[in-house]
């Protein structure tokens, strides 16, 4: 099952600039490589990843086959209030994934 992990510092105060690290479990098959039996593995990559903090979209990535398997992204956000951090992604097969985590601001 596809899953994601997000990480940020334990204690976040209002107005801090927080580094968010995000890892999504996904094979990111390019469609150029073959498996051990010599068959070409069909392309299956993540098309979009969106991150919402509350209702605000804070980050969006549109990867291509140029991103490694199990894509990892790192970005910054300015902490304001405690909100729900939501990651959503869609891949070529139409599979979608979601990850929710509370972004606590003290």
């Amino acid at each position, binding site marked *: 099952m596809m899953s994601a992990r997000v990480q940020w510092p334990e204690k976040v105060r209002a107005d801090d600039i927080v580094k968010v690290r995000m890892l999504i479990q996904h094979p990111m098959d390019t469609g*150029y490589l073959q498996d*051990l039996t010599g068959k070409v593995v069909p392309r299956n990559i993540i098309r979009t990843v969106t991150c919402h903090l509350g209702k605000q979209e804070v980050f969006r990535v549109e*990867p*291509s*086959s140029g991103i*490694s398997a199990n894509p990892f992204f790192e970005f910054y956000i300015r902490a304001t209030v405690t909100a729900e951090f939501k990651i959503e992604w869609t891949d070529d097969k139409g599979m979608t994934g979601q990850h929710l985590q509370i972004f606590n601001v003290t």
Partner: protein
Amino acid sequence: MNVDSWLRRKSLKSLLLAGMTLPWLMGRDALAQRMNSGLLLTLEDMVQPIVKGAKIFKKDVQIEAPILADNGSLVPLEVQVQSPMSTENYVTHIYLLSQRNPVTQMAMFQLGPWNARANVSTRVRLAGTQEVVALARLSNGEFCYNQMEIIVTESACVDAS
């Protein structure tokens, strides 16, 4: 030398020749997979589909990556753009472009003033030694870029087969 032994010699000789050429012929298939020989795009070719004639400067963007990447399928890459990230002046998009990959645009990041810092990092696949370009679109419609050469010893476009 009688006719029989001459024929024997001749067939042995051709067998040897076939033995030397066959693997080479079969090897062509594997060679085609290696994309190192593929053409290298110029900066204009890489950038223009996105920039579409807007102003572009080589400044304010910094790429941090290993100069020598052993494994092309996992190269850590960090892009830092000097920008105040205020509501009037911020970075809207960051593009990662590759000179040699079959797909030029490796990733597109969408940012905004809520990010406070225009830094992103990720891990990319590279099909051989090449120049990598990080292109940032600013909120006033201008573009900034920087490029860096990354030496890749093992391309991401070769597999176990």
